[in-house]
């Protein structure tokens, strides 16, 4: 390099690297902070607790990432969690479910996911076919989805004892929570979907420039509907996991405020709100950061309300970094 240009490129290089790896750096800082401050942080137990908690956020955040990649947003994820979570115990505790436990278990997994699928179809159709703004379109189910769940359960807390179903939230493989493995498998599948399949390519194209994608023969409607369906089904799955962890389904609380966690995780993970990017593993990183911040505050006795403010600060920082990255 000549003496003229030694200074500037190095500096920009450094700031660029800082911006691009902001998430990892933040994660490092949080972990370091916890090692020093939080008692018993470096325990297998702590790791297991965090993985079991983060899995649901990660699973929903990955779905959210797909929707955000199209330039949309899905506010109904928490409501869909509540709905699918309410359906499962209703099915395996029904007469049919108790008479044929095995069939009942399968049905208790499939029907809630099918219901979530329909929710996604509904969201996607309103967005892609009726061209309603995603934030308004998904507000419909955001409001009514949880309402339906509460009507189905008469607003009651459903408690149950069903070890087979609870495996979803309490099972362990190689010492780690089952849902952590599940999230990892889903991440690999989605990564493949986004980066190697035609659907994935179209997904990013639609978010990057919808008109150009359409003019190049891209099935814009199908791709958008597909993204909302995937997001809903993943939310449905997360709803089942939460119910399985608690051995209880509370339609009023299951997935409450999940839309915010999921959007935050996706954005922290590098998803651009205007679309065109779908960093699947970024969403997991984002979910881990959000979960760790929550855990840090909780473990150090900070109030829940303060934790919300911390979450807002994270989103703010992520958006700021995104803006800076664009320049």
């Amino acid at each position, binding site marked *: 390099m000549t003496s003229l240009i030694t200074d500037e*490129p190095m500096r920009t290089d450094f700031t660029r690297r800082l911006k691009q790896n902001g998430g990892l750096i933040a994660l490092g800082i949080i972990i370091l902070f916890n090692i020093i401050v939080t008692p018993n942080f470096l325990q297998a137990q702590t790791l297991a607790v965090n993985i079991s908690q983060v899995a649901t956020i990660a699973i929903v955040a990955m779905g959210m990432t797909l929707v955000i990649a199209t330039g949309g947003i899905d506010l109904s994820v928490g409501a869909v969690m509540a709905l699918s979570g309410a359906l499962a115990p209703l099915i395996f505790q029904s007469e049919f479910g108790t008479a044929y436990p095995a069939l009942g278990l399968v049905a208790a997994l499939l029907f809630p996911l099918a219901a979530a699928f329909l929710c996604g179809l509904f969201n996607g159709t309103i967005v892609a076919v009726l061209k309603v703004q995603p934030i308004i379109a998904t507000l419909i189910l955001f409001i009514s989805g949880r309402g339906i769940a509460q009507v189905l359960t008469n607003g009651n807390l459903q408690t149950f004892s069903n070890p087979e179903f609870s495996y979803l939230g309490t099972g362990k493989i190689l010492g780690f929570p089952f849902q952590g493995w599940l999230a990892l498998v889903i991440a690999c599948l989605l990564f493949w979907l986004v980066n190697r399949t*035609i659907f994935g390519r179209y997904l*990013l*194209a639609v978010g990057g420039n919808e*008109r150009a994608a359409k*003019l190049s*023969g891209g099935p814009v409607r199908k791709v958008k509907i597909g993204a909302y369906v995937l997001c809903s089904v993943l939310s449905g799955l997360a709803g089942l996991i939460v119910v399985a962890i608690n051995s209880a389904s509370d339609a009023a609380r299951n997935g409450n405020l999940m839309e915010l966690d999921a959007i935050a995780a996706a954005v922290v993970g590098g998803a651009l709100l205007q679309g065109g990017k779908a960093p699947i593993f970024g969403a997991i990183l984002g979910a881990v950061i959000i979960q760790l911040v929550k855990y840090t505050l909780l473990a150090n006795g900070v109030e829940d309300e303060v934790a919300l403010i911390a979450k807002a600060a994270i989103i703010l920082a992520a958006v700021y970094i995104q803006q800076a990255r664009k320049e």
Partner: protein
Amino acid sequence: MAPLLAMSGIKKHFAGVPALRGASLEISPGEVHALIGQNGAGKSTLIKILTGLYRRDDGDIEFAGEPSHLTSPREAQNAGIATIYQELNLVPLRSVSENVVMGQEPRTLGVLINWPEAHRRTREILSRFGIDIDVTAPLGSYSTAIQQLVAIARAVSMDAKLVIMDEPTSSLDSSEVEILFGVVRELKASGVSVLYVSHFLDELFQICDRVTIMRDGLTVGCTNIADTTKLDLIAGMLGRNAEEIAAEGQTELAGGNSAFDEVVLDVDNVATGPRLTDFSMTLHRGEIVGLGGLLGSGRTEAARSIFGLDHLSSGSMHLEGKSFNPSEPADAIRARIGFLTEDRKEEGIIPDMSVRENLTLALLPALRKNGQIDLEKEKALVAEFIKKLGIKTAHMDQPIRELSGGNQQKVLLARWLATKPDILILDEPTRGVDVGAKREIQAIIRRFVDDGHAVILISSEFEELVEGANRIVVMHEGRAVSELTNPGITENALVKALAHHEEAAT
């Protein structure tokens, strides 16, 4: 007279790559000064340095007699340098007045905006340019031309000494261009200088006093426009010699045989809406058919109907003898039709995607293998096209937005060529593209046609139509009104055909 602006020895590097290697520019007060050069010659970098968007590595700038060290567009604005961008930075939903007085609203009692005064002031400014419109109506309800003039009016109202216009006429039709030229002359008369950047060389001879030519980050010449010719300017930009170009013709489209008997596409009395009411044409194998007409004559709508973007309300189309009625672009693509759209940025590129992903976008269904994209095949194909079309890119995974306009256009052309189309519809294929790339693109089109395919060509550049098209279908107000056949078409004949229908209509 002392110059208003003097830039000299300007250097700028981006991550070690030189963008400007010693550029200079000098503008006198009250002068209309043209700045030309191929894409990548450094015009925009120079302007961005002038307006404080970039910091120069080296060189001197004097503005209005004082050394200038602007660090932001706002400072430039305050210093008296106003920029009218290609994409207007105005608020379409607010009134004309609001847009003009924004940031310097007249006030009563120090807090409330004095609207009557704002409207009055706006009317006064606009009337100077001979524009009489309802200033309380939303800006977006007026044509692009008017919006552009409002942007200029806004600049003038802020006491600009220098107005920079970047491709101001690229979205205007010929009557609107005349209005704009009137405004430029008015600015000149009142002592304001104009820096005029344009790819349309003919315009420069109409309104500019001097022209500065840039090539490869250097200023290679500055002459009075009266002392030069179009050919000289092209030669200067390309770094070639004028005689050489004269011998070759101005475009690379000319040529081809004239025996066409195999009809590929037959369009009969097609209508899709108010902007396309009666369109007919026939297209043969090995033929370029031009669509001539002014802006808004229905040329683009005709293309959209063939590509399945607008649905037929009446009429019919036949593709190779079979009835053809595509309901979406995917249908047309399957029928081996490609459509290179006019607006590269809005309808062409996916800016954040790589050259590779952009190039294969229309081809994806053909790249499916075991449920995923056949990356090997994709890479081989992209490499082939990058080589064949001479696309200048660092590597195939470079984001397309980092390429120059001409290279972006080549990628988009490759996007369609890769689908092996029978028919290519090209809407302004060389607009906003530098002279070198333009000739290359024209040569690619020629080769495509000579291989036995067919092209429908829409172009506002008459020489492209006149030299390139075997026939020109002349359109007026949504109808195909006449047809010219080559050989024998001259620019005059085409202009006459267009003008004739203009007159007939009035």
